Structures are given as C-alpha cells and as structure tokens.
C-alpha cells in the first residue's frame, strides 16, 4: 500500500497559541484511521489544514501519486483532487431537495460554464437514486432537506460525500447525536468505504472508535502523542494521563 497523504512537521498558531505543533501524520491508500484526542487537541485544525481552510506556518502536506503539495491549492481544488470532508454538524443545503443536494455533490466537472450547461443524464439520476437508497432516503428524495431529522441529515451528508467519490474521506464526529442503531450503521458505512479509499475519522467517543477496530492516532496539544491499535494506545502512560489524569 502506498502512502496517500503525508503531513510532516506542520505547525500553526493563532495569535501566539500553537494549535498544531510539529505534527506528522501518514495514511495509506485504503486505510481506516481514527484520530482521537481531548478537546483543544487540534483535531479540527488538523482537518482544516488538509482541506485548505487554514494555511500552516510551516511544514509540508503532500498528497496523491504525484506528491502534490496541498498547501498551494485552494479549497475547491483540494476537493476536486479527491479529498472529501464531513463536518461535525450536518451541513446540507436545507433549502434544496435531497435530490438536488446529491446531484450537486455528484462527481462532475465543477467549472461555472460546465455547470450552467449541465443536464443530468438518466445514469446520473440512477446514481443519485442508488445513493439515496444506500443512505435510506429514497422516499425522501424530493423533500427539502431542511425537513429531515438530524440523523437523516447526517446520512444525507455522508451520501453527498460518497457522491463526490473521494480518495480521502475526512469525517468529523460522525456519531454525534446518533442513536445506538444509527451508530452501528455508521460504523458499517465507514468500514465499507475504507475498503476502497482512505478514511480518517475524528472522534472522542472511545466506544465508537473501538467498534471501528482500526489504527488510532492520539493527538494532544497539537502533536501526535501515540499511534497504534486502540489497546496499544490505551495502555500508553501519557495517553492515560491526558485522558484520565489532571
């Protein structure tokens, strides 16, 4: 397995506060990875850096087969290169139907003129219909997504991510606000997705991470504290101190 994303020696500070401090991280082509850490460990900033929302003060972020630097690319270019992101709160376009949300996310040319003259083919509509059935929203396809329940919105957002067909999936606290049954389903989807692409899950619910059953990276004060299986990192003295101590 080749490395898909390599973050090395990245630091960023906001008004003197070092949110990320000499962080290094690697993930392979088809890998599921959980990133855990207490509040303020820099999990979200870490995702912001990869997706281009925040530019680091120093360090390198290299992605893909050709080893392109993500630091020179805009958010939309990074997304087009195949990095999808799911936010902690479901952010779907509430004013528009489930169909329109999915159609917008579908992997297509993103330029304004191409979009202006875009006409969905029957295959595109079938693809959307298929995605909708995967996320259990077939019946709600023409409902405004603002009318959906919280869990359904989370599903829709995951569906939009899958529609983008990314090579690297960044998922921020997917299980937040979900029922146990929904969590179970989420784990399945994520594990399934990780068979063909890299998936990074940021979470601080240990139980959920245990169910993902994958390699874990522990962040603390902006850098990697420990890495390995969940059992391995939970035995780590420092990790115990960070999570339980003080």
């Amino acid at each position, binding site marked *: 397995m080749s490395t898909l994303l390599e973050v090395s020696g990245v630091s960023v500070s906001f008004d003197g506060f070092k949110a990320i401090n000499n962080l290094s991280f690697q993930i392979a082509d088809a890998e599921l990875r959980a990133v855990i850490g207490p509040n303020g460990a820099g999990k979200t900033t870490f995702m912001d850096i990869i997706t281009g929302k925040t530019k680091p003060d120093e360090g390198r972020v290299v992605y893909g087969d050709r080893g392109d630097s993500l630091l020179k690319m805009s958010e939309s270019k990074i997304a087009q290169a195949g990095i999808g992101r799911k936010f902690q709160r479901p*952010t779907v376009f509430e004013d528009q139907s489930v169909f329109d949300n999915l159609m917008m996310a579908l992997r297509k040319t993103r330029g*304004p003129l191409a979009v202006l003259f875009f006409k969905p083919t029957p295959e595109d509509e079938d693809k959307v219909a298929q995605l909708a059935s995967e996320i259990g929203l077939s019946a709600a396809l023409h409902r405004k997504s603002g009318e959906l329940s919280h869990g359904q919105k989370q599903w829709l957002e995951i569906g939009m991510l899958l529609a983008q067909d990314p090579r690297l999936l960044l998922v921020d606290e997917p299980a937040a606000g979900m029922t146990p049954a929904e969590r179970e389903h989420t784990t399945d989807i994520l594990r399934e997705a990780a068979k063909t692409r890299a998936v990074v899950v940021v979470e601080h619910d240990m139980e959920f991470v245990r169910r993902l059953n994958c390699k874990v990276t522990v962040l603390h004060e902006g850098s990697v504290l420990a890495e390995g299986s969940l059992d391995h990192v939970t035995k780590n003295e420092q990790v115990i101190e960070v999570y339980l101590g003080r």
Partner: protein
Amino acid sequence: MSDVALGSRRQPFALRFPSVMVFLAILALFTLGVTILSEGFGIGVISTSFVKTLGKTLCLCLVALAMDLVWGYCGILSLGHMAFFGLGGYAIGMWLMYARTEIIVLESLAAAPLPPTPQEVSDGIASQIFGVVGASEFPPIWVFAHSLPLQLAAVVIVPGLLALVFGWLAFRSRVTGVYLSILTQAMTLALSLHLFQNDSGLRGNNGLSGLQNLPGLSDVPQSIVSMWFFWASALALGLGYLLCAWVVSGKFGSVIRAIRDDEARVRFLGYPVEAFKLVIFTLTAVIAGIAGALYYPQAGIINPAEIAPIASIYLAVWVAIGGRGRLYGAVIGAAFVSLVSTWFTGGQAPDINLGFYTISWVDWWTVLLGLSFVCVTLYAPKGIGGLVDLIVDRRSPNRHGADLGPDQGALREQEAEK
C-alpha cells in the same frame, strides 16, 4: 427508487416552472393592453408620457431581476448595480446625442458656399455637445460615438468589463457580506463623482440630454417612438426573465443558492465559489446595462445623479419588498414601488391635513418607503411575492405518507390532508 418521483424532472421546462409561463402571459397581455389604449397605436386613453413611465418601469423590472439573481439567489448584496444600469444608458446616450447633433450640424453647414470638410463637421458636433462644459474637442471616450453598432456593443461590454474587474478583485480577496456591499457603494459613488466632473468627457453634471429624439426620425411623433421603446422594453424583460429562469432552474441555480446559504461548504464540495460569483456578478451587470440602455432614451436625459449610491439602495429595497429569491417577486417589487413612488412624488397623492401639520407626500414618501422596507424585512421577509404562496396554496411534495415535520411524531401526511 420510483420513476414517478424522477419523472417530474423530465417534463418540459414550461411545465416544471409554471410561474415563467404565467409571467410571460401576463406581460404579453399587459403589452397588448397598453398598445390598444395608447395614443400612437390605439384609442388614446393612455397618454404618451404615461406610456413612457410604463416603459421605464419595465426596464426597472429588468434591472430588479438582475438584482434578484445576484442578491436573492447568490447572496451577494451588491449596492452598485445601478452604476451598470447608468453605464448602459451613457453608452447608448453617446450615440443618440452624437448622431442627432451631426444631423443638425450638417444642416447648418449645408448653406455654406463650400461643402464642409470632415474636420469641420467633427468640430461643429464637438462644440455643440461640449460647449456647455467649455470644451470643443471630443474626449477620447467618444471615439466610437459615431457608430451605433459599436455603442450598442459598449452597452454590454462596458458594464460587463467593469463588473468583471471589480468582481475579480473583490471575490478573490474573499470580501463578503456587508464589506462587499460597502465596496460596491464605494464603486458607484466613485463613478458618479467622476462623472460629475466637467472634464470626465460626459458633460459633467449636465449629463446627456435629448435622448428621446431618435436621429433621422424627427418626423415620427413621440407617441409612436414611445411605443417602440415600450415594446422593446417588454421584449427585453420577457427574454431577461426567461434567461434568469433558465439560469436558476438547473444545477447552476442549485450551486448559487448553495453559495448563498453556506459558501464554505460549497468550496469543500469542490466548486470554485469565486468563479461562480464572478459569472453571476458580470451577467447581472450586463443585464443591468441593457436595461439602462432601454430606460434612458425613454427618460430623455441621463446625468451622474442617476448613478448616486442611493439609486442602488432603492434597487435593493424594491427587490426586498417584492420578495427576493423568486424572480416574479423582483418584478412585482420594482413595478409596484416605482409606480407608487411616481404617484406619490408626482403630487397626485392627496395631502393629509392633520390640523396642526399637513403631510405632504412629496416629502413624506421616502419616510413611508423606509418604514415599509423595515416592516417587510421584520414581518414579511417573503415580501409581496409571498402572497402568491397563499393564493396557490403551495402543495407540499409527496411524502408517501411519512412524517411531515423534522421530528418523529410530527403530523403524518395522511393526517394533514384536508
């Protein structure tokens, strides 16, 4: 997945968007009605000056459509679109003024013993046009003024280019929200201050005048000319409405509404948000320019005051009162507010005598307009267009008997049916 649900998307455009057809039908009926009642072509119930007012109103509706596209759909509160409107007016005004003056100069020189040289003609036109600002030579920007096709091209190109450059600078620096609004106000203010100068090349605060007279058609009475412009304005509004409806109906419309609602999220979907904004900003500037080019020949005069910042703010008020985010809302707002404004400021509205104070609407109209803007914003954000929802009783999408509300336990579809 049922094909029934998808079937609705494969219907023809007209059936999916009935409001477009209704609008075009109303516009056609209105045009026909005005023609029949006009002095030029009908029974003469409507005076020529009122035909002009109606024609101008149609142009204002067109620029309001542009404003709705850029603000209501894409979320860019531009307070500078009347600058593009004015530029379109100046572009056509330059040709109208040049060509008409040329005829007058040629007539006066025809009596001379020697046939005039081109230089003499040109000097004659220049001193006629620019005598009022103490100049007698053509400024460089008048180089194309002799040519109707080139000035017509300028109607589209000048506003489009200004919007392209301004938008490119503003959007790539990620200027959004109120800061962008202020920037657009600064743009329109700077432009109007520049045009107020006598050496701006566009006759300073005198502006361009006599635009109602079409060169070479001095025999045609204004009652006929006004109808020509009225028809042209109606046609432009109809085509503009179709264009806007097409733009907002497909995936492009989906993306710009998404930009309005959550710009950052659209970026993470991979759409170049800045490019989309630039396309919309420029397209609407071009529409505004065309509207202006049809408006000012009916108004007869254009001067820099027309480009003052307040004009663009009025435009936003019209769209807000009419109901933004729906195309017919913008048209209703512009038509309603500008006609009512004509009525109030024209002195036709009866003053109200309170005994101790007389409310004279000429002065108090702006207060009333401001109040209604505040009230619409606070209590009826959907504007006048929202009334249409009440009338057609918007049908909810078919939910196959599922919950209606966002929560479990909300009314189910069967329960809600009447």
